[in-house]
C-alpha cells in the first residue's frame, strides 16, 4: 500500500516480528545442517551445533557411497515418483479436460461423483482390503495407483482449461482433428504452466509419501526413501526407548545427512513450484 509513506513504530515492530518468524522456521534446518556436516569428534565437542568449526561431507559420502539400503530406497523413490507423475498427469489431464466441457451431458453428475470423494471415504480398512485384493501388495504399484488421482488437482486443471478460448478448438475441429487430438496437439502445448504446477504437486506428493508403503510393502527391499528414513530415525528411537535396540546406534550426524538427502530434491524443485502457487490457489477454488 502506497497510501501513506510515513514509517511508524508499527512497521519496525512488524519487521522484527517477521524476522523472528524467519528465525524460528530456519533455525531447525540450519542446526540439522551443521550436525550433518560434522565429523564424529566435532559432533561430540561442539555442544550447540549452531556455528560449525570444521565442515566435512563424510556423512554424505558414507550415505551415498556405502549405504546400499539407502541407495536402493532412493532408486525406488525416483522410480515411483517419475512413474507416478506420468500416470497421474494422464488421468488428471483427460479427466480435467472432459470436465471443462460445460455442455457435456452428465457432466454435473460426474462432477458431484468426484467431489463427494473429497469429503467421504470408506476409511482405512476397506481401502486396505481393496488394494490387497487387487494384488498390489509388495509391488511398486501399491505406492502409485492408490494415490494416482487428486480431485483437487483435476479441478485445478479443469479451471485452467476453461480459460482457453473455444475458438482455438473450433478451428482445430474444422481442420479435421478429433477431440483427443485437439487435447494433445492444441490444448496441452498452451497449458504448460498448469501442467508444470500439477506435475510438481504430484511429484512432491509421491516423493513424500510413505503410508502406502507402510501398509502394503512388508519387505524393506521395496521401501521408498521416506520409509528408510522413518526406520532410521523414528522407529529406531522408539525401539531405543523401549530398550529393544539391536546393533550399534547410528550416529546422529549420519542420520541428519540422510534427512538432508531427502530435503535437497524438494528444495531444488521448490522455486519452480513456487512460481505457480498463487495461480494454483486462485484456479483451485472449488466453487464454480
Amino acid at each position: 500500500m502506497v497510501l501513506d509513506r510515513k514509517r511508524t513504530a508499527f512497521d519496525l515492530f512488524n519487521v522484527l516480528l517477521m524476522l523472528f518468524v524467519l528465525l524460528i522456521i530456519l533455525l531447525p534446518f540450519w542446526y540439522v545442517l551443521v550436525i550433518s556436516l560434522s565429523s564424529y569428534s566435532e559432533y561430540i565437542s561442539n555442544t550447540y551445533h549452531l556455528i560449525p568449526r570444521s565442515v566435512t561431507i563424510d556423512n554424505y559420502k558414507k550415505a551415498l557411497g556405502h549405504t546400499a539400503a539407502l541407495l536402493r530406497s532412493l532408486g525406488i523413490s525416483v522410480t515411483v515418483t517419475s512413474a507416478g507423475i506420468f500416470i497421474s498427469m494422464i488421468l488428471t489431464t483427460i479427466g480435467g479436460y472432459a470436465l471443462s466441457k460445460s455442455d457435456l451431458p452428465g457432466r454435473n453428475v460426474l462432477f458431484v461423483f468426484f467431489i463427494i470423494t473429497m469429503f467421504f471415504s470408506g476409511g482405512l480398512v476397506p481401502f486396505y482390503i481393496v488394494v490387497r485384493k487387487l494384488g498390489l501388495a509388495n509391488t511398486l504399484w501399491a505406492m502409485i495407483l492408490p494415490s494416482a488421482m487428486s480431485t483437487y488437482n483435476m479441478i485445478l486443471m479443469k479451471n485452467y482449461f476453461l480459460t482457453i478460448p473455444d475458438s482455438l478448438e473450433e478451428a482445430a475441429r474444422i481442420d479435421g482433428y478429433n477431440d483427443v487430438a485437439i487435447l494433445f496437439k492444441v490444448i496441452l502445448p498452451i497449458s504448460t504452466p498448469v501442467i508444470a504446477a500439477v506435475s510438481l504437486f504430484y511429484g512432491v506428493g509421491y516423493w513424500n509419501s510413505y503410508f502406502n508403503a507402510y501398509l502394503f510393502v512388508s519387505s524393506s527391499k521395496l521401501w521408498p526413501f521416506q520409509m528408510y528414513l522413518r526406520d532410521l530415525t523414528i522407529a529406531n528411537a522408539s525401539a531405543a526407548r523401549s530398550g529393544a535396540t539391536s546393533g550399534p546406534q547410528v550416529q546422529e550426524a549420519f542420520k541428519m545427512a540422510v534427512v538432508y538427502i531427502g530435503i535437497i530434491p524438494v528444495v531444488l524443485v521448490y522455486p519452480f513450484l513456487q512460481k505457480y502457487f498463487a495461480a494454483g490457489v486462485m484456479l483451485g477454488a472449488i466453487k464454480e
Partner: protein
Amino acid sequence: MEGLTRKKLIRDLNRYKYFYLMLAPVIVWYVIFCYAPMYGVVTAFQDYVMHKGISGSAWVGLKHFRALQKDIFFWRAFRNSVIIALMRMAVEFPVPIILALLLNELRTKWFKSVMQTVMYLPHFLSWIICASILQTIFNADNGLFTLAMHQLFGAPLQNYVVPSTFRWFLVFTNIWKEAGWSMIIFIAAMAGIDPTLYEAAVVDGASRFQRCMHVTVPCISSTIIIVLILNIGSMLNTGFDQVFNMQNPLTLETGDIIDTYVTRTVMKDAKFSYASAIGLFNSVINTILLLLANKGAHLLGQPGIY
C-alpha cells in the same frame, strides 16, 4: 417422445464419445479406489476374514460397535482426538490469518516475498523429515531446545516429549510446519481486494489499523469461514501424518488419536472388522460436523460449501 430422447441420447453419445472415452479410466479409478472402499464399510458389520472376502465372511450385526462402547483405548483415542482438534482450532487456526495480515502490512516488496518463500517451504517436506529434525532438537541429552531451556531458564536436561506436554508439542510443531502454507489462501484473498476501498477509507480518515479491521478483515471473512468449515468437517482426522510419526509408546496416553489407533488395530492386531467399525463411527461424526459447520455458515449469511 421416447424415440426423440433416444435419438438425442445417441446423437450426444456420438458427438461427445471422445470425452466419455477420456472420462472412462478416471471413473474406473474413482470406482476402484474411492467407491469400492465406501462399499467395504459393510465389513464393520461382519467378522471379516481376508481370504473369504466380503461375500464369504459372516455377518455379526452390531457386535463390533458394542465392543467399541467398552473399549477404553478407543475412548482414550476419541478423547485425545477431540481435545487435540479443539486445541488446533483455538490456537492453530488464527495463526495463519494473523501472519497474513501482518505480512500484508510489510512495505518492502522483496522482504515480503522472501518471507513467503521461507514460510511456505516446510509444508513441502514430509512429516518423516520434520519429525526426524524435531527429534534431534528435542533430544533429552543434547538437543538444541533442551540445552536452550537449560541455559536460559535453568531447566534440567529432560525429555520434553512426554504425555503431559505432547498435545502442545503437536500444536506448536504443526504451526512451525504448516502455518505459512495455510496463510496462502488468505494472501490470495487479500490480493483480490479492490484498492479503491482502501482509498475511500483513507479519504474518510481511517488509520492503518482501522483500514485493516474494516476493509481487509471483512473482505477476507468469507474465505476465513470456508476454511473454518473445511477444518471443522475434517477436524477429527487432520494431522495423522504428524501424530503417527511423532508419537511413541510413552506418549500414547495423551497422543493416540482415532486414526493412529485404527492403524495399529489393522497393522499390529489385524482386527479388520473392528477397525472398520471405528472408521465408520469416525466418518459418521465427521459428516455430522461437516453438516453442522455448513449450516452454521448459512446462518451467518455465508455461502458455505454447498
